[in-house]
């Protein structure tokens, strides 16, 4: 039985600009950490090899230190690492790989398959058919040669490729780097390890996307895993098991507040999310001033618990209650301004400005200093 670990899309060197610098740095750092965990899993599971199906690196020009750290993170597993250049780290004339070679950063147990040629691991019992990208993108199916490639008899045939399965996803219709959906069948592959899609996905029983081991966007489902693939022998369908290795859950939620209890539900869910998540929240609807304050407090607390918390309240209206307004003691023309701002929130244009203005005004009116001065 052959046991391999299938992973892809490490995207090392990716920066997370939409977050605060601290969060961004932590998220970039997490990508090294997950490699170390993969090595750990590989070692624990005593796999025969680790196959990385492209996009190890997020870009071609990365700092030397980044390259060193990547290979150092792999030290936890001393078995063979089989790396495939993807679209982000294509094997160009000058590439991240040539640089890594020049820097002598690549350990001996790491092999980079930068040519489309059969690579035989006879001692373990399999042969790898790689389809490395030598351009950033190509309209041709680079796995086509698998069909006619001969491998020594008795060895398990494992395909290794990076791209989009053609005609599988609507948005991937004209995507570059296409891969035929039936490649595994046509090329008599026992397993086709794919990279490029960041969520774990099975195309058929022998064709899998492992997804990225550490999530890096909100939209992917099943990211943050590696696949343990067990192969009995040629012609036998593989057994594939997913292992969670990701550190940060990426959660994107939209809440619409209509009635007072909606806020309670929101706060409850907020509290239930796993710690150190990366959260993108948008809240719409309306809130009274007290509710607004509760929300603010809850968000502040959650921000401490999670890696990153972003909350968009553009469509949220402040709807002060009679009591709120009474509490503001906004008499005279201040009262008129409060009413005006409230009514402006109902309009289409610049309603968020009106809400901000109202919040600022409420803040000023509720300022304890002011309250004290009032008789």
């Amino acid at each position: 039985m052959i046991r391999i670990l299938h992973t892809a899309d490490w995207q090392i060197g990716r920066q997370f600009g939409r977050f605060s610098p601290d969060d961004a740095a932590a998220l970039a750092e997490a990508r090294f950490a997950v490699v170390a965990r993969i090595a750990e899993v590989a070692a624990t599971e005593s796999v025969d090899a680790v196959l990385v199906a492209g996009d190890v690196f997020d870009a071609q020009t990365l700092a030397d230190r980044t390259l060193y750290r990547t290979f150092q993170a792999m030290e936890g597993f001393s078995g063979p690492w089989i790396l495939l250049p993807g679209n982000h780290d294509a094997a160009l004339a000058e590439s991240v790989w040539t640089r890594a070679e020049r820097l002598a950063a690549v350990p001996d147990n790491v092999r980079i398959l930068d040519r489309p040629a059969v690579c035989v691991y006879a001692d373990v019992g399999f042969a790898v058919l790689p389809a490395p990208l030598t351009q950033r993108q190509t309209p041709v199916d680079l796995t086509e040669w698998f069909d006619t490639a001969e491998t020594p008899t008795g060895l398990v045939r494992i395909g290794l490729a990076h791209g989009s399965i053609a005609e599988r996803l609507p948005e991937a219709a004209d995507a570059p780097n296409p891969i035929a959906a039936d490649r595994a069948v046509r090329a008599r592959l026992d397993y086709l390890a794919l990279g490029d899609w960041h969520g774990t996905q099975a195309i058929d029983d022998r064709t899998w996307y492992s997804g990225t081991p550490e999530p890096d966007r909100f939209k992917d489902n099943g990211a943050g895993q590696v696949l343990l693939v067990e192969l009995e022998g040629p012609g036998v369908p593989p057994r594939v098991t997913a292992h969670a290795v990701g550190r940060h859950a990426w959660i994107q939620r939209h809440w619409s507040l209509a009635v007072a209890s909606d806020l309670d539900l929101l706060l409850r869910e907020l509290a239930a999310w796993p710690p150190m998540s990366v959260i993108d929240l948008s809240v719409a609807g309306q809130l009274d001033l007290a509710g607004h304050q509760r929300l603010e407090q809850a968000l502040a607390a959650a921000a401490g618990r999670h890696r990153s918390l972003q909350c968009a309240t553009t469509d949220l209206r402040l709807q002060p209650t009679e009591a709120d307004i009474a509490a503001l003691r906004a008499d005279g023309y201040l009262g008129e301004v409060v009413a005006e701002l409230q009514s402006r929130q109902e309009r289409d244009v610049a309603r968020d400005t009106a809400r901000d203005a109202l919040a600022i005004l409420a803040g000023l009116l509720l300022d304890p200093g002011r309250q004290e001065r009032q008789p």
Partner: protein
Amino acid sequence: MRLERLRIRQLQQFRDTLAVEGLTPGINLFVGPNESGKSTLVRAIRVAFFERHKSTSLGDLQPWGDSSAAPEVELDFVCQGRHWRLHKRFLNRKRCDLQVDGEHFHGEEAEERLAELLGYHFPGRGASKAEHWGIPGLLWVEQGSVQEIRGPVDHAGEHLQAALGRSLGELASSGGDEVLERVARDRAALLTSTGRPTGEYAAAIRDCEEHQRRLAALVAQIDRYRQQVDRLAVLIRERSETDDFRPWEAYRTRQEHARARLDELRALETEQRREGEALEVCQRNQASQRQRLQDFEDRARQLADREAERQGASERLRQCALRQPRLDRRLEEARADYERANALRVAAGQQARRAQWQREYDQVAEQAMDIAADLQVARALQAALQEQELRHQAEVIDNRDLDALRSYERQLGELQIREQVLATRLHFKLSPGRHLTLDGEPLTGEGERLLVAAAELQLPGLGTLQLEPGGGADVAELARGRRRLEADRAELLQRVGVPDLDAAQARADQAALRSTQLVENRTRLRTLAPQGVDALAERLRLLEQRREQLAGQLAQVPEAVVPVPDESRAEEEYRAAEARLRKVEEDKATHRRDLELARQAQNAATDEWRRLDAELQSPQHRQRQQDARDQLTDLRAEEERLRMAIAQRQRHLDEASPDLLAQDIERWGSSAAALEQAAQQRKTEIAQLQGALNTLGAEGLEEAHDSLAGELADLERRRDQLARRAKALDLLLGLLQERRQALTRQLQAPLQRHLRHYLELLFPGADLRVDERLMPEVLVRGHTGDEQRALLDALSFGTREQLGLISRLAYADLLREAGRPTLILLDDALVHCDRQRLEQIKRLLYDAGLRHQILLFTCHPENWRDLGALPRDLLGLHNASEPAPA
């Protein structure tokens, strides 16, 4: 509030008591010249209210120099339906009493009561100043300060606001202003007054832009990096596809082969060139021999030419000689003509001179004849003149003598008449034949005599009658006078040489006639002989002399027998003949020269011919001609041989085309070099690119880019947050200000209403805007959309004065509505008003007087006569004031 009565005592110029009684509601007009005490009256009222009775700083109240005086003011007034009496004394025996409907207040209590009632303050210490005066400070206008409105309104502010209910106060005290201020401050931290980003916000925008720039630069760099990577891939492929096979070497080999073949052809070409040159030499030699032969023929042809020339020259000589006799004949004729013409010319000249002389002779003769006749006449005239002059001298009588004679005659006549009158008239008529003798004079016939003296009448025959005329002495006197006159006349007549006056007259006439004749004759003589008769004679002599001379000359030159042409024509013919002669002589000379030349030419031509003939006949010449012919034949054979050899070789060369071969060599060489160089360049570029990419790659461009993009995103988030906050603050501030303004306007409405009431009269259609402290600020005139705004300070002094008054009246109305006391004092206000405005102001004051008591002080009573108020003369008041009680 209404003042009813005012009494002052020992106050400034009012050392005694001055009482102003019976003040009416409405307008009270006080008139009086300067220094009449108007200001003192006003001062008294102000002091009574504003100053503490205990004040020590009121020394000026005392009459001049009287430091013991105790200035006193007593006021009766009605306010809020109650009667008040205030009595105040300063400096000495100070006191203050206030009575109201039986209530009494004293000292400071009374003063505080008044201050509260009227709305003003007392100073903590010292004299009361404008800032303490409150409402009276606004309504009691001091001389020349009606245009000052800001200070008084400011000082009255709190009282005015109190009068407007508490609303205005709320505006300021509800905390709204504090919030507004904070919002404004927060906004100012992000936006300038014009809404441009500033401070942190501007910095965030700048940072974003800076990052965007840096990011763009990085993108460009990454782009370049990628292009270089692509280029490297291309180069490496080309190297492995082309350069590894060393294609330039094949070209080099082909080049070598071609070069060997070309060398052979080059040798052939050299031979060809050499033979070509030989052919040219051969052809040149042929031409040279042909030229020699040609020369020989030319010499033979030349001999014939020379012969012809020789004969031509002889013929020309002969022809020339033939012309000689004719020329000689022409010369002879020309000479004869010339001589003839010359003789004629001379003769013509003589005849012309002779004719001239003849004409002169005739003239002279004629002249001499005329002059001789004149001379004869002149001589006769001269003789006659001499005789006439003699006669004239004899005849001439002096006119004076003539006049004297006439005078004697007249006087004698007159005496005679007088004598006749006085004389005794003797009339006689004698019988014929009888006679008498009177004094010896016989009397016959009939007649009459006058007897002036005693006369003796002889009567023949009878005796003598002695007649003695009467009249005595007179007649005798007359007779004596007559005799004297007659004696004088006789003497004169004698001297003149005439018997009587008539004769004298006749002689005078005769002399005048002769004088005329004399003049005539003299004129005639002068005409005939202007220079005198002798000169005329001399002239005649000279003429005779000339005539004789001319006669001599004429005799010498005989008159021509044959006709002679006139002189000019003869001259002309002579000249023509002369010209002809000269022409013929020239022809002759020319001919001589031609003849000589022809002779020389003939000799030369003969010599030439002889020489050439001798040369051509020589044996050497014949030999040379033959040699040339032989050489030409040899050269022709040589040329034919060379031509054939060259043509054959050329065919060979054309087939091999060495030029193309040379091009091939060059082409293959270049190709080889180019390929090799390209390979070398590729090698170099690959090395360079690899080096460059290595360096660039180490910079971690994309990582840096992503990192920078991250920073940018963060900055943009911050910027957007600030933008959002700025927008919110901007909106909030705008709303707060807008609402506050609306509220302010609402609160100001009552004041505006009163203001408009007065403005309508003075500035129809205008609006006076007040600020939130109820301070008049801007005057707006004209219609909406075409408004003219003017700040109060920018208006003319007069207008400011009027607006000051209007504002005060409006405040007064406002205060009245609020149930506050109003009393208006105007001290010499509105002196800068024009007539028309003043009229309106009077209407306006009258209108205000219906609601308020107004005390108006003026030194221009004529301006206010039609104010509808009885003027009080201060001087009158002064006099009426009663002496102070002791």
